[in-house]
């Protein structure tokens, strides 16, 4: 699961994805996988505890729907709180990334 990521990374990516359009779990997983060019070793299943956490924090909402393949699926939508959270997460992530890069490549000004 997100053992290989820092805490909250998966949530951030999910929120980012959902901000563009509501999606169900499978599509979310495939989207993140495709967007990251499979660089991130994420088990697809680990998406679901993350989604549960966000449901509980009310960053996302879920609605039942039927897929084109006629399966009962749950469509996740970002909420206002989720957007705010995403903004906060992205900015703190940016700062963290900057910091890490400075440590890793000190010769670059």
């Amino acid at each position, binding site marked *: *699961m997100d053992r290989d990521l820092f805490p909250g990374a998966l949530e951030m990516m999910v929120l980012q994805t959902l901000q563009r359009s509501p999606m169900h*779990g*499978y599509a979310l997983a495939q989207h993140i996988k495709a967007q990251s060019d499979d660089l991130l070793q994420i*088990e697809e*299943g680990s998406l679901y505890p993350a989604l*549960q956490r966000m449901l509980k924090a009310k960053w996302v909402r879920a609605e039942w729907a039927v897929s084109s393949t006629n399966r009962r699926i749950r469509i996740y939508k970002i909420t206002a709180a989720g957007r705010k959270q995403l903004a906060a997460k992205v900015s703190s992530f940016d700062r963290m990334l900057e910091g890490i890069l400075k440590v890793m490549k000190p010769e670059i000004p």
Partner: protein
Amino acid sequence: MKRYDEEALDAEIRAHIAERIDDLRAGGLTDEEARRQALMEFGNIARLKEDARSVWISLWWDQLCEDVRHGFRFLGAKRMFCVVAIATVALSIGSSIAVFTTVDALFFQPLALENPGQLRLLRWSAPHLRIAGGVGALLEAQGATETGQFSYAAYNQLRQHARAFANVACDRFWSFDVEDARNVNGQFVSGTYFTTLGARSFAGRLLNQDDDRPEATPVAVLGYDFWKSEFHGDFGIVGRAIKINNQQTVTVVGITAPEFHGINPSWDAGIRLPFALHGSLGASRLDTDPWSACQRVIARLEAGVSDEQARQATEGQIRAVFQDGNATADLAAVRIEFIDLQYGTSEVRDSALRPVTILASATLMILLVACVAIGSLLLARGAGRQQEIATRLALGASRSRILRQLLTENGLIATVGGAVGIALAFAARRLLPSLIGQLSGFQNLKLPDYADSRVLMAGLVLTFTSAAIFGLLPAFFNCQVDLMTAMRRKTRARDSRWRFIVTSGKATIALQVGFSVLFLVGMGLFVRTVAQLRAGFGYNPANLIYFRVTSLPLNAPGDFVERTYEELRRIAGVNAVGASVWPLFAADEHREQALRVCVPGTAKDATASGAAAPGAGYVQVPPRGPDLVGQEMVSRGYFEAWGVPLISGTDFDWQQRRDNERVTIVNTTFSRQFFGEENPVGRTIGFGACPGLAVTIVGVVADSTNTARLKPAPMLYRPMNVLQVRTPTFAVRTAYEPDSVIPQIRRFLEAQGIRIDGRDVSLGIDYRDRMIVREAFIARLMIGLALATLFIACVGLYGLLTYVVERQTPEIGLRMAVGAQANDVVCMVLGQTITPVVTGLAGGLAAAYWLTRFIETLLFGVRRLDFVSFAMACGLLVICAVIAAFIPAARAARLDPMRALRCD
């Protein structure tokens, strides 16, 4: 979505995987490959579900609920274990609460009065005390130099002049006939009584100083319980006149509050009258026997006055009173003593102290043994759950989570058990005071209702304490699972964990064996005590009925007793009939029956007493003291009916009674005391003052007594005079079970219009057993405790050995494979029980040796280190232990070596 929805998540996951399979198949994989690939990409479904669930139950409350649900599921699966454990906890906690709240009510509840801490009971002492009148004689006879008794003048002196007291009251016990109710417990009280005590009335008003004047209208105050039972709670009684002793009319002015019991919580007065009525109601007049007036003087300290100041002031007052001439004492040496009445005074406490202490400590021990037993059960059972725990640990559960889970399970047992226990204690709250009352010999014991919150508190404290004892250690221990060892399925016998379980199991068994030996010894001592007591009464209570006539039928003939005797004898199944004044009794109880006799002095008596013979050859026997002579009037057949053997001479006959012949029958003690080895039949002794009225001894009967532990006193029996005895007691000996004869006797009494004491005829067995209620109860308690602890110890032993045998199976198999016989295996297994059983036995016997000294005074006819009881305890325990140990040992001996070896 407010909470975790497992079904929804499942549906989502299924959809996810199905979609992935579809996509992969579209990419050219076969069905099987697609499925495997999809599952692999998805990851560990079980763990992610656990994670998803933990999102929703991360709060401690949610986790607790989850744990409790899980715990219930688990306990539900182990129903037998769960029922045994909860029942054990419930019973031990319930009985502990009941016992401790009763102790609390008996010893630690302040009186329901205003500021009871200010109340003092007065006693005084003086060397060379001499008081005129009956009280003085009584004190003198007892050799007492200390008393709580005061004259009315002394009380008045204190009331008027002792400034250290806000108020002083005096009371005296008496019994009255109130309307139709006979012998109602009552008191004469001073007018200051209720004000001093700070009591409030339930209805009407209480007595005051104006009621206690000779010229005042006669009034009375009723006790709440008496008013309830005798006047059926009729408020109209207040203001009405009632008849006392069929002579004096008094007006009821009020009823005391239900919780009011004076200063003695275990004694209840039905009626209280002012001292002004003392003389007119037949009590001795205050001026002729002044020191019999105030049996107790109660004072309320003035605020801010210390006990010492008040004591000195009171001593001065009492010295002044002694000048009145009725009493003399060494004045300078008069000492006043105060008894704090915060918790009241109660003779019940003194007599209940010992049985209650035994009860309370036995209950605590049982609670402890029960906790240890459950703890060791949990520990051993935890050993069987190592794989489950290891699996959960391997799946990523944290140790703290598992510890919490185990604690919840143990806590559940404690909580459910504790709740049931509290309910049991509430149910038993009415039962226990009456039990304690019987134990201490006070049948009508009143205890303040114990407050509900105190019961609850006691319950909670006990529950948590016991949960801590039996729950904590096993839980901590059981969650310390070494993953690798546990997953190998079978632990090796040399494993340190295994050794710990066996060692602690053996220690537990030693403890349980110790307790059961202790209780077995107690059981032996009390069972033997009861047997000795039962045999010690000297009469035969089996097949015996008795009843006391309270009112004769109208126009009863002069020979009523004789006629009734004859008619009762005619009833089928009646073997013998006898009449007497009281049911069988011995001298000690009825001191006023003590008799002065003059006995022709044998050489031995004359020299031994050294008394100059007042008449020729007579020795006067003192009416009181060690040579108390009791007397009773009995009819023909009395001894036969009660089953008291006639040793020599003859029984009375009716003719002797009619002719008023001067004959008597004496008991063995009388005979031995005054005539030595000589047969007294035919000898003459004198009644009353020497030489007295000469009567001839016609028979000697064996000693008998109604009171347990009573040293036989010399007794004289005289032919019953029906003209004097208006309320005879009849005893009927039946040929077979009394039940079959009782209906006929009831019919007979009804037909004759004879009213008897109590609701029904009484049984001889009850008459005897009433005297040994306390010992019989303790014997039953000990039997119960001994059997319970013995059972627990045996189950523990069985459980431990079963576990040991299971773990040692490979070793046993190996031994058998290299030639060990079944006998060797049995010995090997049994050998493991020797240490704990012997340690427990030794500990238990040592404890019994030390503890029996505290119950020594309760024993009768057995020494506290009674060999039979100790030997029986050891024997019984060893036999049971061997049986309990033999079952797993025999199972081990039947093992098939090949299978046993393969077991590892």
